[in-house]
C-alpha cells in the first residue's frame, strides 16, 4: 500500500484520540502540492445560495465553474426548480482581453425575461476578479431594467477558502433582507428564521415541522427550499436559529446589528442536541404560554419513534472507531 506522510506544515492539524489533548490547528490555508479536499470561495457561495429555488443563479466566468456546480448538492425544493439549471456566461478568450461586462449584461437580458425569476444572483469567479469586471454596476442596471433584485456575489475563487465564500453569500443575502414588508406577527406564535440549513435530503422540512408543531412560525429558511420573498421579509422574525454556524453566523450577526434580531447557535446532530435546540428556542420565548410543554411533547413523540430504531445500529456500532 502506498502511504503518504504528513506535511510538516500540517502536523498540528492532525490528531489521534488518546495521544493527549486534541488541540487541532484549523483555519490554515492549504499547502501547495498537498492533495486537499478544500474548495474555493466561489464554491462556498454557490452551496449557500444554490438552494434558493426561485432565483436565477448566473455564474459569470468560464463554463467549468457552472458545469461542476450544476445540481450536484441535490437541495430539495417543494416548488420551483430553477436552481437546478446551470447558467454560465461561458467567458471566452476575447472576453478576457476586452472584459466580460457586455456578455454579462446580455446574458441577464436573455435570462430574466425567459425565466422570470424572483431575483438573480450573479457569481464572480477567479477570472472575473482578474479582468476586473464591475459586477455591481452591471447588476444595478439589470435590476433597474427588469424590476427584480439582481445581486452580485463577491465570490472570486482565489480570495480565500470556501469559508470566505459563505461570508460573501451572506453579504449578498443581506442585500435582500429588509426589502419587503414582513407579514404581521401573531403574538401567540413567535417567529424564527432557520439559518444554515440547506435541505439536502429534506431536513429543512423536518425542522420546520418540529417548530410548527411547537407553535413556532418559521419565517425564512436560509437557504434550504428557499424563496426570495421569505428572504426579503426575514427581518420580521424575532429570533435567528443558526445551525451550520460556519456558514451563517455572519448573516446572523449582520441581522442582529441592523435589525436587532438576536440569534442562537444550535445543533441538530443526534437526539440530545436536537431536543436541546427545540428547548432553547422555547426558552427564548418564555412569555408565550405552553411553548416549552409543546416542545417537550414534540421531543417525546420523536424520541419514542427514533430510539427503538437506533437499538440495532447501537449493537452493531458499539466499540467501533472512526476517523474524522
Amino acid at each position: 500500500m502506498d502511504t503518504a506522510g504528513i506535511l510538516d506544515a500540517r502536523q498540528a492539524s492532525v490528531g489521534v484520540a488518546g495521544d493527549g489533548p486534541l488541540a487541532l490547528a484549523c483555519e490554515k490555508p492549504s499547502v501547495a502540492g498537498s492533495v486537499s479536499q478544500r474548495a474555493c470561495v466561489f464554491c462556498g457561495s454557490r452551496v449557500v445560495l444554490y438552494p434558493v429555488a426561485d432565483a436565477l443563479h448566473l455564474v459569470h466566468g468560464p463554463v467549468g465553474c457552472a458545469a461542476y456546480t450544476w445540481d450536484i448538492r441535490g437541495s430539495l425544493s417543494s416548488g420551483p426548480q430553477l436552481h437546478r439549471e446551470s447558467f454560465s456566461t461561458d467567458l471566452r478568450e476575447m472576453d478576457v482581453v476586452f472584459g466580460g461586462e457586455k456578455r454579462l449584461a446580455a446574458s441577464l437580458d436573455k435570462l430574466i425575461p425567459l425565466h422570470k425569476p424572483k431575483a438573480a444572483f450573479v457569481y464572480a469567479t477567479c477570472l472575473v476578479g482578474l479582468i476586473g469586471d464591475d459586477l455591481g454596476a452591471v447588476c444595478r442596471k439589470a435590476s433597474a431594467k427588469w424590476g427584480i433584485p439582481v445581486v452580485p456575489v463577491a465570490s472570486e475563487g482565489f480570495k480565500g477558502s470556501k469559508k470566505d465564500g459563505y461570508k460573501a453569500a451572506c453579504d449578498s443575502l443581506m442585500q435582500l433582507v429588509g426589502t419587503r414588508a414582513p407579514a404581521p406577527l401573531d403574538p401567540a406564535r413567535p417567529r424564527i428564521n432557520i439559518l444554515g440549513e440547506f435541505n439536502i435530503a429534506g431536513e429543512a422540512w423536518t425542522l420546520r415541522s418540529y417548530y410548527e408543531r411547537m407553535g413556532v412560525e418559521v419565517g425564512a429558511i436560509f437557504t434550504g427550499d428557499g424563496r426570495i420573498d421569505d428572504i426579503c421579509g426575514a427581518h420580521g422574525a424575532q429570533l435567528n436559529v443558526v445551525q451550520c454556524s460556519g456558514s451563517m453566523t455572519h448573516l446572523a450577526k449582520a441581522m442582529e446589528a441592523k435589525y436587532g434580531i438576536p440569534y442562537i447557535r444550535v445543533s441538530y446532530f443526534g437526539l440530545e442536541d436536537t431536543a436541546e435546540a427545540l428547548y432553547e428556542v422555547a426558552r427564548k420565548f418564555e412569555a408565550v404560554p405552553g411553548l416549552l410543554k409543546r416542545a417537550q411533547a414534540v421531543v417525546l413523540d420523536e424520541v419514542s419513534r427514533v430510539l427503538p430504531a437506533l437499538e440495532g445500529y447501537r449493537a452493531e456500532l458499539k466499540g467501533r472507531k472512526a476517523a474524522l
Partner: protein
Amino acid sequence: MLLRHTTAEPKVEREALTINPSKTCQPIGAMYAALGVHRCMPHSHGSQGCCSYHRSALTRHYKEPVVAGSSSFTEGSSVFGGQANLLEAITNLFSIYHADVVAVHTTCLSETIGDDVPQIVAKAIAEGRIPAGKHVIHASTPSYAGSHITGYASMVKSMVTSFAKRTDKRLNQVNLIPGFVEPSDMAELRRIANALGAKTVMFPDTSGVLNAPQTGKYEMYPKGGATVAEMVSAGDSLGSLALGPLAAGSAARHLEVQCKVPAQVLELPIGLRATDAFVDALRNLSGTVVPEGLMEERGQVMDFITDMHQYFHGKTAALAGDPDQLLPLAQFLRDIDIEVKYAVTGTPAPKWAKQMAAICGPKAKIKEGGGADLFQLHQWIKQEKVDLIFGGTYCKYIARDEDIPLLRYGFPIYDRVGHQYFPNVGYRGALRTLERILNALLDRQDRDAAEEGFELVM
C-alpha cells in the same frame, strides 16, 4: 417538470450565454489524460476549487478515488504570480506522495496572470526539486478556450513532447493514441490489437487506473497507466494511430514532426465502419492479418443488425456529447437506419459540424460551440420529439420531462455504472450499443402497448 422553464419557443440567440452546458473546461480533460500515465500525480496550477471540482467530477463518474494536487493559489499568488506555489508543490508531490511523474496543467487563473510554467519547471530542475528519474510534464489549459476535449488533447500532446525520443532503432510497434474515452474502451483497443498480434504502445491508458478492482487495499497509484519507458519508445514506433481527431490528433501530428513517426488520424472505432477502419489501419501498419476471432465478432454485429433491423428503422435520435464520439456514433446510427435529428456539442468544432451534416442529412439540426447546449437540444426536442436521447447524465432532466429513453453515453455519467467496465468501441462495443438501443426501444414498446397489442415474442 424539472425543466418547466424551457419552452419550444422563443429562439434564444445566445453567443454570450450557456444554459445547461454540453461541455466543461479544459483542466479536467488534462487531469483525466494524466491519470492514464503510470504512477502519475496530476497537478492543478490554480486555486484549490478547480482541483476539488475536477477530482469530484471524475470520482463521481468512475466511482474511484481520484487524487491530484493543487497549487492552492491565494490572493497573494494571484497578484505576485504562482511560481513559489508551484515550486513548493513540486517538492511536496515527490517527497510526500512519491509520484514518478507530475503532470501540471494550468487554469484560467494562472493563465491570465501569465505564469510561465516551463520556466518554473526549469527552475525546479535547477534547484534540484525533481528527484533523479522523476519527471514533471505540463500542459497549458486555459478554461476560457476550447473545452475538456482541448485540455485532454493538450496533455496527451505534452506526453509526446516530454517523452517521445527517436533513436536509430525502429521498433516493431504501433502507437495507439485514444481520444477521450473510458478505461473500458482503452482496454478493448488493446484487446483488439492483441487479437491482431500487433505490438502496441498506448498512451494515455486509464484502464487499470480508473476501473481498478477492489482488493481491500487502497493504492494511490494502481497498476495501470502508460509507463515513461513506453512513451519514450513511441518515438521509434512504425506509426501512430490517433483515434479521434480533436482529442488525439494533435499528439500524433506532433510525434510525426518530432520523431518522424507517420501519423494516421482516424475516427474513434465506434460502430461498424469506424471499427473496420481501425482494424484495417492497425493490420496494415503492423503487417498482421485479421484473425478468425475478430471476424466472428464482426459477424455477430452484422447478424444483430440483420435480425433486428425492423426495430431500428425509422427511429429518431438526439445526441449530446463530445464531437469525436458523436461523429462515429451518428454514422453507426445512420447505418442501422436510425435518423439523427439533433446533435449538440459545446466543444468548438466547426469542421465536425460539416461532417455531421453530411452524415445526418440536410434535415438534421447540428450545433457546436457557443450556444450549443442542452437547453438548445431541449428546445428542438420540444418542437419535434425523438425516440432516443444519447448523452451524459445531465440529459436525464430532458428524458424525464419529455418521456424519452436516455442511453447514457459519454461524459459525465454520475448516476449509473458500467461505462468503466464495458466498452463502446470495437465490435464488442458496437454489439453492446446495439443491445442497449434495442432494449430501450423494446422496453418502451412493451410499456406503451395496448393490451391487445402486447406481444410475447416480438
